[in-house]
């Protein structure tokens, strides 16, 4: 059984039918990516999973339990943790306080301390800036902080929304290297990206989203070879 199973969800913004029956699965330990153009519904899919917007129809099943009934804040306790688009760090708090907020849902002090050591190992830069106000960090550092903060919640599935947005290519590579490393250490990842080249290079499987519908799903390797994907998303003629 898949860790996360999304079954025919329909999400609306008012009268706008944004997701027209999306189904996908994420197996334990995978990196799955969702690619597509602007406005295809990638972020809406993530927001539907994390509970920020409730689908009108369909099922979202985590470990055999339909989790659609839970509020967004309750889903964090279930292990659904999202790194939002545009990072969304607490810019008035220090780096350390941001990471504390990440662990808000947890009670296991030893585990929190262990994970803090781990994220500081992953992002040594954050350790250096522990006492700094988060709003003064650079864009790349803020993305690191947002990722580290999500990891502090000990996610079962980490939802990442456009981690490459607004970052220089060299930083994008650094962030993606970390995503791979986090995944190797056991975190399941669902990654939404416009940068399809990067996303497919690290993912196991991928889904292609077009105006609220999944038009293609395959292994990442096959998608990279797919002519339509190459043309539309990878910039290969």
């Amino acid at each position, binding site marked *: 059984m898949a860790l996360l199973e999304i079954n025919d969800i329909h999400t609306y913004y008012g009268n706008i039918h944004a997701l027209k029956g999306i189904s996908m699965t994420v197996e334990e330990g995978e990196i799955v990516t969702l690619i597509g153009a602007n406005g295809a519904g990638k972020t809406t899919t993530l927001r539907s999973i*994390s509970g*920020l917007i409730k689908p009108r129809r369909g099922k979202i099943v985590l470990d055999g339990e339909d989790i659609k009934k839970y*509020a*967004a*804040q*309750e889903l*964090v*306790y279930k292990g659904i*943790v*999202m790194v*939002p688009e545009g990072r*969304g*760090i*607490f*810019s*008035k*708090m220090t780096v350390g*306080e941001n990471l*504390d*907020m*990440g662990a*808000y*849902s947890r009670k296991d002090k030893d585990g929190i301390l262990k994970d803090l050591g781990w994220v500081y190992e992953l992002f040594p830069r954050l350790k250096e800036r522990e006492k700094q106000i988060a709003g003064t960090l650079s864009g790349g550092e803020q993305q690191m902080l947002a990722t580290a*903060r999500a990891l502090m*919640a000990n996610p079962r599935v980490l939802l990442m929304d456009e981690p490459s947005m607004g970052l220089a290519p060299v930083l994008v590579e650094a962030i993606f290297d970390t995503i791979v490393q986090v995944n190797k250490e056991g975190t399941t990842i669902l990654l939404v990206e416009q940068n399809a080249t990067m996303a497919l290079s690290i993912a196991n499987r991928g889904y292609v989203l077009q105006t609220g519908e999944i038009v293609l799903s395959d292994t990442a390797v096959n998608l990279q070879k797919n002519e339509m994907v190459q043309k539309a998303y990878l910039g290969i003629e």
Partner: protein
Amino acid sequence: MIAPADSNNTLAIQLLGIMEPIPQNLRQSSAGKISSWIRKNFITSLGIFIVVLLIWRIVSVAQQDSYPIQYWAFQLINGLTLGGVYALIALGYTLVYGILFMINFAHGEVMMMGGFAGFFTLQLLTYLGWTNDTPFSSAISVVVMMLAGMTVSVLTGVILERIAYRPLRAAPRLVPLISAIGASFFLQYTALLMFGAIPHNYHKPSIFVGVWRIGETGIIISYTGAFIFVTSIIMMIGLYIIVQRTKLGRSMRAVAEDKQIATLMGIDVDKVIVFTFILGSALAGAGGVMLGLHNTVIRFNSGFIPGLKAFTAAVLGGIGNIPGAMVGSLLLGIMEALGPSALGLPTEYKDVIAFSILVLVLIFRPTGLLGEVLSNKKA
């Protein structure tokens, strides 16, 4: 006339009719330079003008020197006492504003309800003989009274949030504000119907009867004043520790910054908002009881003016800023106590002074003394 877009003060300048171009020959003279500086810095010049006027008035009143130093000391102590009460109420305004970006105009009435609860508890305890029996029983009765006031204020505040504000959270920002004003009147007239229009007298517990005299200076501090000041300072420190050091305080700051991101951390935003109302209302309840002890009377509209004053204090310190509310309140208390005498006005003018301060702050420093520049989201 075409309004130049480069200056925010243009409208005011136009209204004063000083937009006529200055003749070329005047531009080089020093008078010309001053007048062009005034044109460019209209608000600042107006501020300087007012400050000069105030200083002139204070100095000329001081030269007549009709008050002894003891009088000033007495007024200063009075101001600090009043400032302590304002601070407890102002913190409620600031906490709620910090999280919901809404002015809870019913907050003064929340305080008044606490004041009444304190009054009736005091009546009961006096009837039971606790208030005047021994110093210990008298002290206990003060604590019970404060707790009763805080409890009733907390209940009022929480119910208010649930009924009057929560359903409107997604509405435009003016809507909850109007709801707050409605709630304010509702609570006032509920109190009027329940307790009548006559003022109710707070009979001081025996522990508060008396004063300290400081040496031979002739300066006196009443026990009530000292109690109010010290207790309010302790409560402010307590609040600061809660907000800065505890998990709940951190979640409050997270919700203040971004509700959606706070949700993604697993924070129940509704709970945090309720908790904020609990904190603010508890402080207001304590403030209501203290105000009752200070003024020795309470009635249905006792919350209105002090509520507005505390709001003024919160704005003066920078609304949304916790240390700002404390500093602003103490300053306002002092200015209100010293102001009339310093300016040679009758004491009845203290409210005029307080609300003039509100207007001046809004004109010259809308962010308050310790406030930050408001982003569009907040403003």
